[in-house]
């Protein structure tokens, strides 16, 4: 947050800071920012707040599916910085970037840097596994799950008879494996998210460029 002081010193300094090189990085486009924070909210919400397997948990998972689909579409039709062609996966370049960062000389990239790109793909893959296994486990849309819960709440336990048959599936090795994968993926995505945040903090500190600011949604008008 040390940049905040230099960034917020209003338009007055603009005239004088012509020579100043601490120009803030351009913002990510609004759709990318929305999907980014939307997915972050879905992951954190489903990890910490919702009841596992409940209708809210499922609805959030579906919202995550929508956000992921939108981001992937945006990877083909969005502006250059958002397109996959701007940050194709390249593990060697990612390693080079990390080594450069440890020496304090990592170049800035208009799109994701190579290490950030690998992280983005890893997060998406993890998210896809989470959503896929989640769908396999429930097999129901959140609307149906909500109807089911409403029926049970109203005292109509008969709807669970059908569930009972499915419950046998859950105990099958396949069902158990799916559940296991879902849980492992959930923990993995949290670990990845933590590494992602750590990477952003480290590069922002070491290279003196605020990487958080371009992702923020709140409008910061100069003047």
């Amino acid at each position: 947050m040390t940049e905040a002081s230099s960034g917020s010193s209003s338009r007055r300094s603009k005239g004088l800071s012509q020579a100043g090189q601490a120009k803030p990085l351009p913002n990510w486009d609004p759709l990318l920012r929305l999907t980014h924070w939307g997915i972050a909210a879905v992951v954190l919400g489903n990890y910490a707040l919702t009841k596992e397997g409940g209708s809210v948990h499922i609805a959030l998972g579906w919202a995550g599916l929508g956000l992921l689909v939108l981001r992937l579409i945006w990877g083909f039709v969005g502006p250059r910085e958002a397109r996959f062609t701007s940050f194709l996966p390249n593990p060697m370049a990612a390693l080079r970037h990390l080594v450069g960062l440890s020496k304090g000389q990592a170049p800035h990239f208009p799109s994701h840097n190579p290490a950030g790109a690998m992280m983005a793909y890893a997060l998406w893959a993890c998210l896809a596994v989470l959503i896929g296994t989640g769908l396999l486990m429930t097999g129901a849309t959140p609307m149906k799950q909500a109807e089911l819960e409403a029926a049970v709440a109203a005292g109509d336990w008969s709807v669970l008879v059908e569930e009972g048959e499915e419950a046998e599936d859950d105990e099958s090795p396949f069902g158990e494996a799916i559940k296991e994968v879902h849980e492992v993926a959930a923990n993995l995505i949290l670990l990845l998210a933590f590494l992602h945040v750590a990477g952003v903090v480290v590069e922002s500190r070491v290279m003196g460029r605020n990487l958080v600011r371009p992702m923020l949604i709140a409008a910061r008008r100069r003047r």
Partner: protein
Amino acid sequence: MSAVSTGVLAGRRRSIALALFLLVQTLAAVFFVGDAIADIVEGNVGAHIYFELLVAIALALGVGLGALALRQTLEELKAQDVALASARGALGDVIAAQFTDWGLTPAERDVAFLALKGLDVAEIAELRGRAAGTVRAQLTRIYAKAGVSGRAQFAAWFVEDLLGEGLDSEA
């Protein structure tokens, strides 16, 4: 807020609104298609599946077209920014050349630049850490070197240049 930045701001607002709309539309499409697929899996395939198919196609088309519209808006915004930056750079060059022509000292250049930006004496003094009297004296020398009567004429010097050229090139 200047006229130009108001226009850019409006474009930004539109792009954010479009992005939000696109997000809601995608969520609706995913939920709807999911519900339809669940219907099919459960064997509830009746005539209404065709209507659901129609709605699903419409939603998907809406998402695609919305994404293209948003991208176009963003590209227009970027083009505006580039044009604005090059216009700014060009104007900055003109101003710098003129300041050199008038033989302004480095301190006077700074003061003149801030005066052009519309800051008053007190603001310039505070920004430069000088007494208001010093700034006032510098401004007087600047106006004398430029051969103008005061701040209004000083600012008009550059604007007039721009307007004049604009009319000439049109004629």
